[in-house]
């Protein structure tokens, strides 16, 4: 009996016998780049926003998941090329220093109690500066919802319509 060929191993349509491009060697694998991470204060600033963003039912979010989130955001910044890091850091700077002004408190966001942080960020989101908040909010949400615990809690575990 012929060995069943998995569709994902087939070559291009009409040339199914051709080999697909070989995967990169370990040394060429983009996952193994040596990174220069942004400074720790960027991670602290991201965590301060995340604590407010994911503060649900008047309860703080799971600290371990917040740590993972802030660290993964830094990894994202270090890997993404072009202007990504610049834009995310500018957005984070705006949230850290400008959002508190919306609650008349000229202190860095992380120094505010979480309730006040939420108010400050919501007011900023509704202001003309709202779009400045979006880059960081989007990235934090995307990463947060990739965590298996978030997916379980929100019933959003990945699943296909058909079995492979």
């Amino acid at each position: 009996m012929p060995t069943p060929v998995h569709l994902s191993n087939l070559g291009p349509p009409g040339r199914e016998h051709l080999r697909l491009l070989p995967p990169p060697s370990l040394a060429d694998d983009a996952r193994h780049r040596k990174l220069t991470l942004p400074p720790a204060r960027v991670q602290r600033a991201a965590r301060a926003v995340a604590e407010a963003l994911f503060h649900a039912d008047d309860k703080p979010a799971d600290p371990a998941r917040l740590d993972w989130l802030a660290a993964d955001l830094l990894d994202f910044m270090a890997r993404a090329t072009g202007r990504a890091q610049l834009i995310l850091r500018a957005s984070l700077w705006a949230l850290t220093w400008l959002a508190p002004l919306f609650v008349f408190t000229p202190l860095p966001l992380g120094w505010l109690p979480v309730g006040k942080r939420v108010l400050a960020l919501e007011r900023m989101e509704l202001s003309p500066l709202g779009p400045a908040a979006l880059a960081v909010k989007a990235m934090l949400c995307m990463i947060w919802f990739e965590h298996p615990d978030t997916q379980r809690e929100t019933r959003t575990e990945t699943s296909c319509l058909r079995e492979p």
Partner: protein
Amino acid sequence: MAGSLQSASRLDGELKLDCDVVVVGSGAGGAVIATTLAEAGYDVVVLEEGPHVPYTGELRPTESVRHTWRDGAVTLAIGLGDSPSINVTAGRCLGGSSTLTGGVCFRIPEHVLDGWVHAGLSELTPEKMAPWFDQVEQDVHVEEVPVDMRSRGTQLFGEGYAKLGAELKPMRRNTRGCNGCGRCNFGCAHKAKLSVDIAYLPRAVAAGARLYTGCLVGKVEFAGTRATGVSGRILDFDSQRPARAFSVRAKRVVLAAGAMFNPLILWKSGLDFPVLGRHLSLHPSFRVIGRFDTPVRGWEGAMQSAYGDRYERDEGMLFNSVFVPNGVLAATMPGFGNNHAKLCEQIDHLGIFGGMLHDDATGRVRRGFGREPIMTYRSSPRDRGRIPVLLRRMADIWFAAGAKEIFLPVFGAPAQTPDSMKHFPLEQVHGRKLECSSQHPLGTCQMGVDPQRSVVDDHGRVWGTQGLYVGCGSVMPSSLGVNPQLAIMTMALRTATLMAAEGK
């Protein structure tokens, strides 16, 4: 002799190559040109800035973004005046943006081709283009998405659309063995999506092409007006910053770096044209989200399975089924803390659909600082006026489908009920507050018949030069109004075949 795929960043010593044809960029256009010419017996070198990431489908979506999307997906075309700023996404990896698509394949609509013929491009008639389309559709295995692969979100939108008297049509996509995991934009773990790194580049390598990743092309080299090759910098593997120089001597050069980057390369090469970098078309796209009482789980299904073209021809509006990661849905929910969490509890109850404008191509790519361009976009009055019309239509469709609330792409705007929607001042919302995205930068090196109004002739040859061609989305003579990958591949196949016919 079989060719090769190598990361230039890891090569020792100088990189100096000789070949018949050097192709800059390995995306939808570049891959087709490289394959066609390699199979016609040409010695082809392909230079790609990004890495080879064939496992992208196995990564988390944000991991996929950090490895294969340009600029971490935060690139903006800055809205001028009352125009929205537009988040423009593109690929930066072997296979280019083709690896990020939802697989949607449209032929160029006849009325668009008729317009091009009217503008003097007499070879681009629907009849003459048909065989090129047939060939590419066969090469990338374009098939209709069966109705049972539609996600529940798409089914619901379809029900609403039907109640308003129209019917969704099945999408055609370049897939083989799709399981409906709804994550095509982040790579397909099943290799069911036949992007050019699967459908074309293995053919190119089998025919002898040499592919190099990690090569950032800076400029085209000339002897007089004849292109003699390209030069640039190899990217440092770890920092991805330009490092060592490289050069490739070639009898012919094809620029296929996409609509955002080709103008930069041409400017750096000392060329300029009155319209270079202008007429950037983006197909501005908007998502409207419907919330239902029962679970929707919109990610289960082919990511883009159906479309509605009732308003395409006359009003330039196309509805496309889409899905975005749940985290992106969460990000579009207004608020922080408790308010945000309450809305996020409903994520599995949300359906999402996209609306796209056939725009007037009023954007512009400009030289920026460093290696990235600056893009600006000033909507024409016609385009700007159509945005609220499009959004109201999509809201009506969701309500007709039974949505309890909808979320508009307006920053910070609360959910709207059918009643509140009637009073929502959508027409007065400033462009700055609109959330708009584009995956289709096109047309900054337009094809045409007049060097004053175009950059390349109808063979893709850059005016006033010899041996220099453009073969990617940047040559589109106008906005298309439909997703462009099939159009780009088809125009590229045509250009490459005409190049091959010119002989070595």
